[in-house]
C-alpha cells in the first residue's frame, strides 16, 4: 500500500529558492520520480529553471532525488515505491 502523500525535503538552493524546508505532495498516480518532480514544479514554480527543467518533468543537471538517503536517481522513470519521504538535493559536491 502506498502512502497518500510524499514529503519532499528541499535541500540547498532548492530550499533557498522555495523559502521552505519541505513540501507535501499527493502521491502521483504514475508512481514515478518524474511525476513527483512535475507535481513539485506545479506547486513551487520558482524551482523551474534552476532546479527543475523547463518542461517540468525532470531535474536540472546537478540535482538528484533520494528516497532512502542511501541511493539516488535522476531518472524520471524511477519508481517511487512506498517511500513516505524524499530528498531533493544537489549532487554536486566540492569546496
Amino acid at each position, binding site marked *: 500500500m502506498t502512502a497518500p502523500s510524499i514529503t519532499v*525535503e528541499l*535541500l*540547498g*538552493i532548492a*530550499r*533557498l*529558492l522555495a523559502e521552505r524546508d519541505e513540501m507535501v505532495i499527493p502521491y502521483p498516480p504514475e508512481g514515478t520520480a518524474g511525476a513527483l518532480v512535475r507535481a513539485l514544479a506545479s506547486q513551487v514554480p520558482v524551482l523551474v*529553471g*534552476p532546479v527543475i527543467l523547463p518542461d517540468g518533468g525532470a531535474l*536540472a*543537471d*546537478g540535482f*538528484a532525488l*533520494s528516497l*532512502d*538517503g*542511501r*541511493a*539516488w*536517481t*535522476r531518472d524520471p522513470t524511477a519508481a517511487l515505491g512506498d517511500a513516505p519521504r524524499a*530528498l531533493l*538535493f*544537489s*549532487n*554536486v*559536491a*566540492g*569546496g
Partner: protein
Amino acid sequence: MPGGYFGRFLWIDLTTRRARAVPLAEELLRSVVGGAGLGAALLTRLSKPAVDAFAPDSPLLFVGSPLVGTGLTTTAKYAVVAKSPQTAFIGDSLSSSHLALAIKRAGWDALAITGSAKAPTYVVVDHGDVRFEDASALWGLDPSQVESRLQARLGGGCRIATIGIAGEHGVRYATITNDGRHAGRGGPGSVMGAKRLKALAVRGAQGVPVAHPAELRQAARELAERSRGASTAKYRLLGTAGNLLTFDRLGTLPAFNFRRSTFAGAERISGETLAVSHRTGTSACASCTIGCEQLYKLHSGSVRLEYETLFALGPLVGVDDPDAILAAAALCDTLGLDTISTGGTLAWAMECFERGALSLEETDGLELRFGNSAAVVAALPKIARREGLGELLAQGTRRGAAILGRGSEQWAMHVKGMELPGYEPRSLKTMALGLATSSRGACHNRSGAYEVDFSGDVDRLAADAGRGAFAAASEDYAAVMDSLILCKFVRRCFSDFYSETARLLSLVTGWDVDGDELREVGARITNLKKLYNQREGWTRADDTLPPRILADSLPDGPAAGVGLSRSELDMMIGAYYQARGWSADGRVTDEAARALGIVAADGGHRSAESFVVDIERC
C-alpha cells in the same frame, strides 16, 4: 616563447640575499603546463632528496600558469609548492586573486625561494627588481595588518603574501595568506616561517602575451557567460556551506572525530540556515565571474566561510553554535591556521581528553570535550603560539599521537600525516580510495573521486575494483585543472572538458594542443608527484586510511552499518595501481614513466626513483 609564459622563473635566495632569473624550457612548460604541475617538476629539480621541510635548502615555490592574466574567468590562481612539513611528501596548495596576477605581470612564471634569512625579512619583487627588507616590525602581526602596512609603505599595485603567527612559530599546518585567501593544506606557512620570510610583496604591470587574442576574447566571453548559468548556481547562491546539510542527510558528514556520519545540529549550522541568519554578502576573487564567497556576520565585521571550515570547526568537534564556528573560523584566518587540520587535530585531542589520554592539567585547564566551543576558541591561540597544550597540537594528529602515545594513534584521523577533509570515506567508497592514494595525503582537491560517488552511477556504499580507474581519472583531471589553473567550480561549464580546455590553452600559447595531450599531461603530473614521494621514502604502507575507518562501521543515519574493511580497501588500491600501470606494490615503473616522457635528468635511464624533471616529449 609561447603565449601565456615569460619562459623564466625568479630564484630568490634568502641566505645570500641574491636573486636571479632562470630560464624555463618550452618543452618542460608544455609537458606540465603550470601551477601544481610545474611546481612538482621544479620542486623535484630544486630540492635535495630527503631534505627537511624546514631546512634552508627546502624550496618554497609560488607558481603561476599560462592562463593567468588572460581574461579567462577563474584563472587568477597560483600554486604554492613545497615539501610538506606535515607529510614529508609533496605539498601543493592553491590560492587565488590579485597576487597571482601580480606575479605574472611582474614577468615571472614562478618564484622559487630558498635559504633562510638571519632576521625577519620581507621580499619585494617590483617588476624585475628584488629587494630584501627588514620585517622585524611586522613579526607577530596578523596577515591583514601586514597587508595593509606593506601596501601603505610600498604604494599602489603591490600584492602581498604573508604568514600569521602560526607560520612564525612553525605550526605544521600554517597557511600563507594573500588577498584574504589562504594556501593552507600541507602547512606552507610554516615553511615560509622557517625561512624567516614574513611576507612577499609583488608588483607588476606587464601585459600577458597571448597567441590568438581575438579568438581568446570571444572564448573568454563565452566561458564567462556559462559561468553565470545553472551549473554554478549552487556556488553563487549558497556557497560550499550548502554541502553540510545534504551530507548530513546522506550520512557522509563526519562528526565527533569520524565516530558519526550525521550531526544533530546540522540544521542549525547549515549553509541554508546561515544564508538567512548570518549572511552579509558575497564576493569574488579577481578575474572571477562566479563569486562563490559567502560572507557571514561576526560580532564585529564578517568572515568568509567554506564547507570544509564549517565541517571542521563544527560537527567534527561537536559544535553546533554558528556564532562560535564563525568566530573560530575568523580566528584561524587571523592566526594563519589551516582550518581542516586545526579541526582535525582538536577533534583528536578532544577524544584523547574524553578517553582520559589527556588530563586537565595537560590541556592547560581546558575542558576539551566535544561540543565545547569555548575550549575550541581558547585553544587556537595556544596552537598558533605553541604554548602549553598548543605545543602538542601544533604538530598535527600524526606527530601528536606519536608524541603522546597512550593508544591515541587509533583515533588520529589522517592520511600520510594530513587530516581528513569533510567526506566520510565509509559511505563514499571511491573517495575512500582517493583519500588513501593521494600524493599529498587526505585531500579532496587533488582527488575529486567523490564526484563518482555523488554521480549516483555507482553504489557509493560498496567497494569494487572498478573504482581504481575512476580514482586515477579523477586525479589526472584535477592535475590538469590545478595546472592550467582553472577554479574547480567552473568544471561543469564544460561539456567536453579536455578538448575545450585544450582549445583555451592553444589560443593562449599558440600550441596545437588537443584533449588527448592534456589527458597525458594530467597523468604525467600525477606520476611526477608520485616519483617525488618515492624519492622521499614513500612505501606501500603510506597508502591507507586511519584505523577507525577500517575497523568501525557507521553507527547510525542512512549509512548505518556500512564499513570499509582493510581487504576491501586493499582490493581497490590494487585496482588503482593497475589502472596506473604501476607495480603491484604501487611504485611507478620505468615503463610507466617512460610512456609519459619522463626521463632521467642526465638523459640516461636508471630507475624510476632517479627520474627527475627533464621531460622529453615522446
